[in-house]
């Protein structure tokens, strides 16, 4: 058993941290307040090559091992959460299906520029009436000659206003539920593709989110991303493990930032003649946070290790995502209490952590759905 990061991984973390500190940290407040995606920052960041950490060298990637990828996400989410979401989307879900199932032509056309940051990708699961309930997907794909014809509307799509291509979940037969789901590649210049409303969000505001509309979009047959028809859910499950651990570590990062800021505040804020960090009720908040944070973080890295070793870990990754996110919810809440009334002012940071963290509850499966599933699994096991 070995719980240590290697020297190389420590060096990698240090370098990523330094990059985020220099490039993103000074802009966090501005990015949040602007509620706009920064193309300038995106292109500058893309030049460093991090968008390729998950993909093969052949396409301009780095093929980094899973634990280092997770180290990257943990450091990335210390900075602006909206920007981090767009980056994570590009590396994971946004390019996963083209990277795994795309033809060589598709990879050259879409994946290579995506790794360079020249094209922005996204994934389209959610609809206005379905999200975690994938069986409720209404977007239809019908084979017509040599083309698939897509019809439907996707909602809550990260990067919807800015994406150049997207991977769309659609059903080939709504009566077949999960067994008829498949993923299709759609490019922005295809007739029938359009962008609907942009959503105003509570947090992670520098990543733009909205609606995508597919009105008789005709895609070539080989734009079906998957070797076998009807296996979409299984394919999604395989990448969702990584997404969930990434989300869990995002929670750890936000929680740590919130509590580190709170530490500074608690050491300076004077009440009844002492810094409030001298009072037991304030100290207990830090002790409790510390325990839950360590447990969540190391459980996430255990899951990352399981993914890296190719071990089955669907349930573990769900547990990690749920546990680390709930830990984060509690930490950002405690931060607002440590800051007292000042937490209610927009000029202090706790409100931003509090808002930004909320998206973790839904990304990678909402907790009520995960809890229901995991409870069922636990009760079945003897």
């Amino acid at each position: 058993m070995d719980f240590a990061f290697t020297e190389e991984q420590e060096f990698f973390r240090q370098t990523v941290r330094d990059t985020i500190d220099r490039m993103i940290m000074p802009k966090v407040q501005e990015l949040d307040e602007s509620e706009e995606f920064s193309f300038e920052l995106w292109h500058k960041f893309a030049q460093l090559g991090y968008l390729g950490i998950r993909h093969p060298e052949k396409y301009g990637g780095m093929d980094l091992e899973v634990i280092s990828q997770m180290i990257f996400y943990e450091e990335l989410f210390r900075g602006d959460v909206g920007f981090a979401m767009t980056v994570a989307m590009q590396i994971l879900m946004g390019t996963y299906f083209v990277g795994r199932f795309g033809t060589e032509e598709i990879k050259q056309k879409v994946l290579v520029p995506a790794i360079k940051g020249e094209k922005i990708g996204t994934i389209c699961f959610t609809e206005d009436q379905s999200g975690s309930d994938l069986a409720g997907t209404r977007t239809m794909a019908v084979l017509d000659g040599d083309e698939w014809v897509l019809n439907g509307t996707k909602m809550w799509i990260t990067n919807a206003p800015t994406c150049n291509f997207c991977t769309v979940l659609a059903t080939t037969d709504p009566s077949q539920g999960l067994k008829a789901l498949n993923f299709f590649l759609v490019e922005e210049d295809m007739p029938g593709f359009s962008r609907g409303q942009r959503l105003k969000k509570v947090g992670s505001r520098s990543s733009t989110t909205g609606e995508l509309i597919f009105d008789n979009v005709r895609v070539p047959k080989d734009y079906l991303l998957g070797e076998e028809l009807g296996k979409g859910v299984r394919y999604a499950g395989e990448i969702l493990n990584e997404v969930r651990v990434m989300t869990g570590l995002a929670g750890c990062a936000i929680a740590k930032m919130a509590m580190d800021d709170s530490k500074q505040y608690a050491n300076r804020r004077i009440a009844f003649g002492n810094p409030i960090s001298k009072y037991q009720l304030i100290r207990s908040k830090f002790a409790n946070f510390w325990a839950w944070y360590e447990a969540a973080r190391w459980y996430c890295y255990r899951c990352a290790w399981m993914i890296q070793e190719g071990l089955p870990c669907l349930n573990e990754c769900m547990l990690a995502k749920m546990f680390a996110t709930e830990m984060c919810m509690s930490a950002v809440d405690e931060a607002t209490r440590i800051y007292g009334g000042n937490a209610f002012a927009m000029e202090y940071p706790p409100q931003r952590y509090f808002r930004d963290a909320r998206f973790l509850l839904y990304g990678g499966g909402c907790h009520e759905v995960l809890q229901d599933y995991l409870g069922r699994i636990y009760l079945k096991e003897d």
Partner: protein
Amino acid sequence: MNILVLVKQVPDTEAIIRAQSDTELDIENKYALNFFDEFAVEEALRIKEKQGGGIVTVVTLGSKKAADALRRGIAMGADEAFQIEDPALEEVDGYATAKALATFIEGRDCDIILCGKQAIDDDSGAVGPALAQFLGIPHVTSIVELEIFADQREARAAREIEGGREIVACPLPALFSAQKGLNEPRIPQVAGVMKAMKAQIQKIDLNALGLSPEDVKPKTKILKFYPPRKRPPVRIIGEEFPKNVETLVKVLREQEKVI
């Protein structure tokens, strides 16, 4: 063009440092490449790029943590890295460091040596000039601009001086120490970071340099570390105007001796 950059891993500016005893420091485990050395590495890479070729070598003296300074250099784009490490070099001063480095550099084909103007931990700024002296080459310290004329084997550097700048010319090989403003150090690309993660750091001990521990015996000795005096609490002069002004002036003049 062969460019050698001297680098040092130093405690991060945010690291907590306490004097454990008179001669021992307790340093929080947060280290980074010396602030001024980053300008030196960046300048070396720019010269190489501008000249359309050459080798940038980073070299450090020290144990364990020191290698991370080299890795940072490689991540930025340096071609090779050397770590001079020996138990006899655990306690060194500027003289001993320069002496060991000079022995390492002698016999190597080297056109330009760059370093930070000082390390932000001991702030002595001695190694660069001492090394140039040992090697018998010119040095220009605290430069904010550097231009290389490879054909003429000459360099022109700018330094900031009181009220202006001075331009200094010297033949190559020469040593230059970098001041803030020389350039904007690049953020390493992930490809460089991965190269650095895998890089083999070539280690050299005193024996390989042909030196004995006696040769690198420090010339100076640290007698005592002590922290700066704690700031006294704010004192309010609670008298009526204009009496309080009178007291204030008296305190500033006679007790604090600042006016």
